[in-house]
């Protein structure tokens, strides 16, 4: 789960960069940038959850 979370972080970042580089119109560009940020948020939630579970196991 942790690795998947980090991949989502990278994927979200890549989506943001791609949107900036390839889309010229303001609305689609903004939409894809926000979509990329949302993917990052999901990624960070996954990473946080995986650490929470790991810690629970250690206790």
């Amino acid at each position: 789960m942790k690795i998947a979370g980090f991949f989502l972080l990278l994927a979200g970042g890549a989506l943001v960069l791609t949107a900036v580089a390839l889309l010229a119109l303001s609305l689609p560009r903004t939409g894809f940038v926000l979509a990329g940020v949302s993917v990052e948020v999901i990624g960070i939630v996954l990473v946080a959850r995986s650490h929470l579970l790991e810690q629970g196991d250690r206790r």
Partner: protein
Amino acid sequence: MTLPASPTFSEASTALCFVLILLVPFAGAGISLINAGLGRSRSAAHAMTGSLVVIATAAVVYFVCGFSWQGFEGRPGHLLTIGHTGWNWIAAEPFFMRGLEISGSPVSLAVLLEVFCVGLAAVIPLGAGADRWRLGPSCASTALLAGWTYPLFAHWVWGGGWLAQLGTNYGLGRGFVDAGGSSSIQVVGGLTALSIAWIVGPRRGKYSAQGMPAAIPAHNAAFVLFGCPLALVGWLGLNSAGAMLFSGVGVERVALIAVNTVLAAAAAGLTAAVITRVRFGKPDASLIANGWMGGLVASSAGCAFIKPAAAMIVGIVAGGLVIFAIEQLEFELKVDDPGGAISVHAVGGIWGILAVGLFAQLPGENSGQLLAQIVGIAALIGFVLPMTYGLNWLLNRFYPQRVTTDGERQGMDLHELGADAYPEFVTHTEEFIQR
């Protein structure tokens, strides 16, 4: 069009900028005092020694290779061409600052400021790793931060990199704007702090078997509260000198920057005081200090481009956000961050970056500025966090970062340094440990 980041300074501007840069070490001293005060008494000497050695490590590593990756606006860089646009992603300076003449030029002043800035970024993770992060691995981790993570992102923002050029290349406002380092210093340091907190885990006894957190109070509130005004002095220099060198702001704006910095910190500290007074019946000293620091951190990005009233709003929101983030991390996510480094520097810094897009009045075209700031935040979370976590995780495989259980019980002072910070007092009580 990007902001003119490589200004030509008059003699008076050079002198003022030099004096302002010399204030910046006070910011590091303030954070160090806060970190030491918020930790346990049996780790106080270790916390201060740690600050000193990581600042030293950061300065040396930055001299060896950091500047070669970071560079400065108008100096050589590596371009990656996407479409017909060049993305300046890393500088191409020689190692050991070879060929760089240290004189009164803006690049020389920038190098001096950067040596202090990288030290400041390096002290931040110590707050999250307090009471259990060993000295040797913290220096090794700092070497990774100062030698790669920090310079790379600082190049994107301050070295004429792709974030700074978002305005020129893609019409996003004036490109990513961060005058005083909310992103390159604070968020980079804060995300490294989060990585360290995850990797080393919570302090022994912090969480019960059911996951309930125990309160481990700050051992010296006087240190913590004295660290706040000390950090303010450093921040006045950091924000002013950073804005002059990296955002091309003139001397006439220095007073505005100082007013904004003070107002943001004051508003954030008061907000934290009110919130804790309302919620707990009495104001909480350590949370007020964290709120104050959150205001300073958030003020940095837009200090030269927002009005004083907006600076107060930035501070009020920062004060509330920091308190909220501290509680979420401790109670919900079970992240043990004794110094509040993640909430103050990562969360406060991200808010500061966003505030530029909301409140800044930049010269010229402002449309798309908010999007440029969001792209910067996405780069921090999407690239810097995985990078700094990965590097520290790898380091941890070869050089364990956490102290042994016996060492933690004994205290970092005795275990790692062989002497206590307060040898004439009994410091080895276990009353705060859950059994």
